[in-house]
């Protein structure tokens, strides 16, 4: 009955032994390292979606192949997962039996002395007049003092030390599984999203308010904690000393916010800074970016306001904060669109438009105006892109383009004395544009990462186990005393290193010296 199965069972056994062998673990580790490389070469969608998309646009031929191979998300790909899952299986298969062995070995006495101690690679022997009992008693004492576990039997002392090394090794490998569990929790049950909030603007934590949002498989709408916050002000310090190598760099970002943890709760305030996230009930709010939002009012041909309010512009250059933005006035007929740049500190040279510094020294917007159909009806559209397919450029002659070049009437609420006029009429009676004010915005990242403490705890345990495993040197030692016919006693001492980097010669020298009652001179 069982006979036909035997082949299969045996084969499984063989496969299991192969999978859990040291050699397989080694090869899988090297494979894992190799498999991680493409993720640093090919842009990853999860890490940097924009760059991945650009890459795809530049390489239309390779893209389908790469997509099939999962090269745009290496770390979720089938092959990468296969390698680390095999490694996990191998790991479990490796540590379970070792746990059993360790458990038995832990309670077992040190093994009996081999018959011929001097045959061991590390051994020594000497003659003495002392009786065997005395030698053995002394040996047991010396070895106990050296923190060996000692048994005296059959005219020999057996000693063993360093049991914790194997324990450390098992803890290390086991803790790696805990780390994996923690990471898995984060990616299945966590979420992360970003949003731009301008000064005086507010945010409540629900899906519709995010600019971008990424969540694990098991995250539901009800998992978003119902907090909200308002950005009261934003401060930043610009390095304006031209001799400083980091001239133009911004630092000391502080966003003053007021927040409530849940509707009806008491309002609290917090200074949101880099490296100092706000933690609300397990959700963290991080300050990760900043920029400017011009407050722009668009009127149609009748003078009716068709669009008004802050419009975040996206910085394109860290040094000068030259930013790009789009205004969409969908209420007008025909619809009006603006597209162009913001120069926070306009250089003053109209032939060479540009910003010379990142702060709001002399803000200027320079945009082009379009009329037509914004294309909003045909599905979702990025607020940072103007779809010009059905739009007509206003004043569109190449030599003499009409531009909306305006300075703001106010800068962050303060009157802007340098600005004479902040309104411009659009050509063809299409309407007018007014640059009312300019406000800073901050980009915050909101994330919940369950399991991060599990992963951290696991990693710390792994490190502790690793230290024990690498620095505890397990070894066995034996001392045998034998009476010769001439009345002298032959004492043999041998040691066996049970780790992979230990050296026992020194210890033998020291033990022999201690047995003889000498002290070893420090050798230079």
């Amino acid at each position, binding site marked *: 009955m069982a006979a036909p199965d035997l082949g299969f069972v045996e084969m499984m056994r063989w496969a299991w032994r192969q999978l859990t062998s040291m050699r397989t673990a*080694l090869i899988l*580790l*090297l494979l894992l390292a190799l498999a991680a490389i493409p993720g640093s070469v090919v*842009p990853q969608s999860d890490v*940097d979606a*924009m760059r991945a998309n650009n890459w795809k646009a530049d390489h239309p031929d390779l893209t389908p192949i790469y997509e099939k191979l999962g090269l745009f998300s290496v770390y979720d790909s089938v092959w990468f997962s296969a390698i680390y899952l095999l490694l996990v299986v191998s790991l479990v298969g490796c540590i379970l039996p070792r746990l059993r062995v360790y458990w038995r070995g832990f309670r077992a006495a040190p093994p009996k002395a081999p018959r011929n101690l001097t045959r061991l690679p590390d051994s020594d022997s000497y003659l003495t007049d002392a009786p065997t009992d005395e030698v053995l008693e002394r040996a047991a004492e010396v070895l106990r003092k050296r923190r060996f576990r000692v048994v005296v039997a059959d005219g020999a002392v057996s000693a063993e030390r360093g049991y914790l090394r194997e324990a450390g090794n098992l803890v290390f490998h086991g803790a790696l599984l805990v780390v994996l569990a923690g990471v898995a929790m984060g990616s299945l049950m966590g979420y992360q999203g970003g949003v731009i909030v301008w000064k005086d603007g507010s945010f409540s934590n629900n899906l519709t308010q995010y600019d971008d949002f990424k969540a694990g498989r098991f995250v539901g709408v009800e998992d978003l904690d119902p907090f909200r916050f308002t950005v009261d002000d934003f401060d930043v310090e610009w390095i304006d000393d031209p001799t400083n190598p980091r001239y133009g760099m911004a630092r000391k970002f502080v966003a003053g916010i007021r927040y409530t943890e849940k509707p009806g709760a008491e309002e609290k305030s917090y200074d949101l800074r880099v490296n100092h996230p706000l933690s609300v009930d397990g959700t963290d709010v991080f300050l990760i970016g*900043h920029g400017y939002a011009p407050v722009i009012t668009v009127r149609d041909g009748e003078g009716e306001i068709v669009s008004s309010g802050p419009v975040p512009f996206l910085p394109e250059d860290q040094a000068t904060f030259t930013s790009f933005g789009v205004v969409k006035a969908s209420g007008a007929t025909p619809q009006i669109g603006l597209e162009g740049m913001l120069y926070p500190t306009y250089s003053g040279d109209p032939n060479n438009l540009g910003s010379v510094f990142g702060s709001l020294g002399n803000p200027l917007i320079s945009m082009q105006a379009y009329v037509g159909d914004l294309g909003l009806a045909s599905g979702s559209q990025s607020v940072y892109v103007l779809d010009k397919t059905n739009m007509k450029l206003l004043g569109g002659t190449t030599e003499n383009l009409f531009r909306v070049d305006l300075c703001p009437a106010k800068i962050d609420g303060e009157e802007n004395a340098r600005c004479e006029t902040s309104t411009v009429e659009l050509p063809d009676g299409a309407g007018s544009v007014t640059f009312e004010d300019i406000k800073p915005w901050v980009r915050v990242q909101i994330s919940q990462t369950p399991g991060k403490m599990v992963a951290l705890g696991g990693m710390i345990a792994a*490190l502790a186990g690793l230290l024990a495993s690498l620095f505890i040197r397990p070894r066995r030692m034996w001392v045998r005393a034998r009476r010769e016919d001439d009345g002298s006693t032959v004492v043999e001492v041998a040691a066996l290193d049970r780790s992979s980097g230990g050296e026992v010669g020194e210890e033998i020298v020291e033990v022999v010296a201690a047995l003889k009652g000498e002290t070893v001179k420090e050798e230079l």
Partner: protein
Amino acid sequence: MTNEAWETLSDQAATVCGVVYFLALLSYSAQWASLRKLPADETPQSGQVAVWGRFGLLLTGLGCAVHLVSLVGRGMAADPNRVPWGNMYEFVLSSSFVVVLAFLVFYRKYRLDWLSLWVVGLVWITLMVAMILLHDRVAPLAESLSSPWLVIHVSAAVLATGIFTLGGLVSILFLIKERQEKRIAVREAELVPVGGGGDVAAAQAVPRTGILARVPSSKSLDRLAYRLHAFAFPVWTFAVLIAGPIWAQVAWSRYWGWDAKEVWAFITWVVYAAYLHARVTAGWKGRNAAIVALIGFVTLLFNFIGINYFFGGGSKHSYAEDAPAVVQVISAAELTSQL
């Protein structure tokens, strides 16, 4: 002292340091030029050879002290004062310091006199490369870098890098020495046929002079390489898998993001883990294990040089046009370009 004065002091100290290491290198070269002609078991304790050796060691120690001055100067020159690990130049300056310091600290314990020529040569070249190619003005750190986690994370990474470098050096010597031992064994086997007889004296007279003969046996080299790697590995583990993620979590809201730098730190970790395995795996001990260790070292170097030069531009760019294209207060790319 003003910041500029500190910076000048640091640069001058680095120059002096380069000169002192070079002189140390010359002394050791003089020592080894004589030593290599002597039988390996004969090391004069006095006379010219010994003096050159001691002089070399003295200069190495002096160089190390000046090296430290240069590092401290860098830190004091920044406003606010900080640890001198803000850019590539400073990172190389620091890790090469660790190499020399570790060499001097372990000099007696592991009797490293045979390693001196190699270490000083390596450090001198590294320092020259740093000064000529990587030198950069002292600059204030980006906001995200001024965190206590910078000190913890980067100091651990610097320490591990220094020790891994030393370990890699010993592994290379191991590979060379092991080949030579095999060759000698073959030669001896030819001279002394199995079953005794033959010219035993001639076999024992197989040359035992030369630089390699003074390098310890491949077995000791293997053990020393293991000890160095075993020291550096937990430090690296702490740097890139504990301190780094904690920092990334507070600064960037995710503790691990598979950024190119993180990927390569992980690869390095995995390869060195493989090395520790290889040392106890049948068929991989010795030669193959040493090769795995050297692959680990290459990944370490690549992370630190390659990423900046091959992906640096692209990756920095990428953050500038992130979707939605937001200039990050703190960008991993900026950090990448600095370390």
